[in-house]
């Protein structure tokens, strides 16, 4: 058996909704006295029952998982899925309502940037303070100080009060301190969001090094799929306080991204979807229908017919259509042009077919864009909506892609011909 770093065992965390307690001491004493004397609570509103006074909310519901030593694990989930709650419990900031969490080793948490930075103190003083809060002794910080400052790229400002730092500088310094600690477990919640792209890459490299070379365990929470992908070996997906998936990062991201009603649909209603404010909505996409299939999972090489339906406010404007195909982590794969659409005022339809042999097996979303473009190149957006979600699966024709590697990208370009 491999050694575990974190074991979460049947953990639940319950919060009370609404006002907490009687909100004042007097109210609480009144309620308490009433309970003692078996009388009716004077603070209850009519119709309320004594124990249903505050609705309860399970932020975590009987959650269990293990994290091995030296692993980098991502925790994914939509807002409110319980990601931050489980991190708080692991960091011992608050205690679980039920269940136990077992930890092996010291924990460093970076739940938010600049934890414990005091604005009046200088960068140097804050490095020591922050390090100590995170569990380092002064001697340890002394040893690592130069390394920390060098990594943070704020060496020039180290003797300036932190209140004069930009938010990026604070993040850099905070990350440097936390990532140079000798703790066995490192917890990070959305920390990389603020730094610039160079620093983000630097951080990810640092984290990878920390995990691989020093054998430290990293738990990472982020909505940024690109960083999750490059950092995590394994992911856990949470939904409504429960674990809905645990496994490889690619699969977990897919589960996370399609974790809604668009799963396995052939009819995509876009009439009520949110639109970008730039769209003027003179031509508005109503729906997209995969009318010849019963599933949105295709075999590589399939040519898939679909129909779009849109509403036009007029019949004299030129209307063009294009589609942007996105990978599951929202990185665009490429664009397909659909040419000009003839239309009359009211509801119109058009049929197209999509060739999947340009796409590496995987999960995709499609944004349909209705637009017009004049000679000078300026673009008029009528509408843009995510109208389709589908999977391309391996089939007879995907021989070349059997050993696909993520560095190749998701688009398969046409073969080149010999002359």
């Amino acid at each position: 058996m491999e050694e575990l770093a974190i074991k979460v065992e049947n953990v639940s965390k319950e919060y009370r909704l609404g006002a907490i307690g009687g909100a004042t001491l007097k109210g609480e004493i009144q309620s308490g006295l009433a309970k003692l004397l078996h009388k009716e609570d004077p603070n209850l509103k009519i119709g309320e029952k004594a124990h249903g006074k505050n609705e309860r909310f399970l932020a975590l519901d009987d959650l269990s998982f293990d994290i091995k030593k030296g692993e980098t694990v991502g925790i994914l989930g939509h807002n409110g899925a319980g990601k931050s709650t489980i991190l708080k419990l692991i960091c011992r900031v608050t205690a679980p309502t039920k269940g136990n969490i077992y930890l092996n080793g010291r924990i460093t948490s970076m739940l938010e940037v600049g934890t414990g930075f005091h604005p009046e103190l200088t960068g140097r003083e804050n490095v020591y303070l922050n390090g100590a809060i995170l569990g380092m002794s002064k001697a340890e910080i002394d040893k690592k100080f130069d390394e920390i400052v060098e990594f943070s790229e704020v060496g020039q400002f180290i003797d300036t009060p932190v209140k004069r730092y930009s938010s990026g500088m604070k993040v850099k310094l905070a990350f440097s301190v936390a990532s140079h600690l000798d703790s066995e477990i490192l917890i990070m919640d959305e920390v990389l969001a603020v730094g610039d792209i160079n620093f983000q890459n630097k951080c990810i490299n640092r984290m990878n090094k920390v995990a691989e070379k020093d054998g430290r365990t990293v738990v990472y929470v982020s909505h940024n799929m690109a960083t999750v992908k490059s950092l995590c070996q394994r992911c856990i997906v949470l939904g409504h306080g429960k674990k809905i998936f645990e496994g490889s990062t690619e699969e977990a991201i897919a589960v996370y991204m399609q974790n809604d009603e668009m799963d396995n649909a052939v009819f995509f209603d876009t009439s009520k979807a949110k639109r970008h404010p730039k769209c003027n909505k003179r031509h508005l996409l109503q729906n997209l229908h995969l009318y010849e299939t019963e599933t949105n999972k295709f075999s590589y090489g399939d040519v898939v017919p679909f129909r779009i339906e849109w509403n036009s406010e007029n019949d004299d404007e030129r209307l063009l259509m294009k589609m942007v195909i996105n990978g599951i982590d929202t990185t665009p794969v490429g664009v397909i042009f659909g040419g000009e659409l003839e239309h009359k005022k009211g509801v119109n339809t058009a049929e197209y077919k999509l060739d999947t042999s340009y796409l590496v097996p995987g999960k995709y979303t499609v944004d349909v864009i209705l637009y017009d473009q004049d000679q000078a190149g300026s673009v008029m957006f009528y509408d843009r909506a995510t109208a389709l979600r589908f999977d391309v699966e391996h089939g007879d024709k995907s021989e070349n892609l059997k050993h696909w590697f993520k560095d190749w990208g998701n688009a398969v370009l046409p073969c080149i011909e010999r002359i």
Partner: protein
Amino acid sequence: MEQKWTTIVKTENKFFDMDIKGLKNCKDLIFLFVRRTFVAKYKQTVLGPAWAIIQPFFTTVVYSVFFGNIAGLGASGVPNFIFYLSGTIVWTLFSSCLTETSHTFTGNSAILGKVYFPRLVMPISTAISQFIGFFIQFAFMLCFLVYYMITDAGVSPNLYILMTPVLLIQLAVLGMGFGMIISSLTTKYRDLAMVVSFGVSLWSYCSPVAYDMFSRSQLAPGTLLYKIYMLNPVTPSINIFRYAFLGTGEIDWMFYTISCVTTVAVALLGAVMFSKSEKTFMDTV
């Protein structure tokens, strides 16, 4: 292979579960918090730590003029100024320990909500940082004491001075105990935060700070009022402090013992309540 665990996070319902072991490793952290409090307090002020003297100095002046001279509540036998100064600085030590630790949870929720370290570090370091201000004031008082000794103004320091560390620690622990009780309760009920500031100033009038209890016939030893008055755990300590440095007043060992017992009881209660609320205060604060 047997799995080893260094920490087990358990549910919140334990009576007393404090991370005493972890506290031992936090010497540096306590030191840095003390330093932070001190440095941050006087940053961007022109006078800096001189403020620590200015406050008790003017309080003492006002007390001497209004209570000492006009109202005639001053000390017998020793100069009013040194009498009030000694009372004020001891009282300030106690009251600042109390008020500052009472903000532990509400004032530091930003840090405490994000990282774990033994929570007791916060009140301990707050209490210690109060001592820095106190020692500045104490040195200030010693200067006046020497001056009054040279001018032979009736002050007579004696060997009870050796009691000073005990007195100061006892008062700090007492203030910390009350502070922890209040801070545990304020995580849920903010009412108490309102009470603290005026409660402390009312308390100071129930203690021999602004007047000399021994020159009041109503408070003569043996009377009922005296017995009630001396139950205030701060009173015997202030009396001993004044007796040691100025040679005025009396020492009542019985009531000092009661005061010490009260201190231990309050500190234990504070620790229990603090440990109860430290686990989940983030959910309610």
